[in-house]
């Protein structure tokens, strides 16, 4: 199916795109519209756009919304949701020191990528790596 979000993806949306392709919709196609632009239904399911179903809710990031809306129960993904939450939302309690580093990497990744399509491929690799490494902790 088709998915749409604003241009200039960062830590949360790179994680969401990785999650969609890996767990929710392997055939996913993505469209990137200008920041602030309203998405139209023909672009597909919007995500990480304020007010949408897949967006920030109750102080949690969009990645978190994807997990809860799709009832995905995977301890490693829950851990990644906590990291992304701390990287992308204002949190009083922080328990994941990796969060700020990951935010920095994803911002830089977008900066050195020619467009969001390239950035999402590179982001995919980052989250594959994080998932693999965190899996060792869980084992």
């Amino acid at each position, binding site marked *: 199916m088709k998915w749409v979000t604003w241009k200039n993806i960062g830590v949360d949306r790179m994680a969401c795109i990785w999650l969609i392709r890996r767990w929710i919709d392997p055939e996913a196609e993505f469209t990137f519209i200008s920041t602030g632009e309203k998405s139209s239904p023909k672009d597909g399911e919007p995500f990480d756009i304020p007010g949408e179903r897949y967006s920030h809710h*109750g102080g949690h990031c969009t990645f978190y919304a994807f997990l809860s809306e799709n009832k995905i129960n995977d301890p490693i993904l829950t851990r990644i949701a906590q990291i992304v939450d701390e990287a992308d939302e*204002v949190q009083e309690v922080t328990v994941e020191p990796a969060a700020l580093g990951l935010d920095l990497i994803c911002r830089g990744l977008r900066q050195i990528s020619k467009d969001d399509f390239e950035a999402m491929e590179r982001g995919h690799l980052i989250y594959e790596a994080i998932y693999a490494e965190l899996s060792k902790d869980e084992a």
Partner: protein
Amino acid sequence: MSTWLLLHYKLPNKPSALRVYVWRKLKRIGAILLHEAVWVLPDLPRTAEQVQWLTAEIQEMGGEAYSWRASTILGQDDESITQQFHEQVDTVYSDLLKKLGKPKADLQELSRQYQQTAAQDFFHSKLGLIAREKLTSKRGEKS
């Protein structure tokens, strides 16, 4: 000329926990409340995203919120606003430096404080640089 982010919101009177929640979030970001009326932040990629999500969150809570990008009409006002941001972090930095000078300073706790303050140090305070150098030079020191 600087571009600023402004946020103005109205929340239902009850529950009061919501008001506290939003207020604490803005303090955590490092925003300044001007004249008890409007919250101000410099327009940076990170702060802009934070304001965007907070605006949406307040609306979701049943409140009303508007946020703007704005520039001052009188250029000298930029300086006085910037100065307020400096003062906000410098208070913490000078307290931190005082604590660092004491014997048996809790370096872990002070580094945590430093990191939190540095995240709000939008205009790169000189005192912050000094605090950072002091902290890193204490590293590995046997007291």
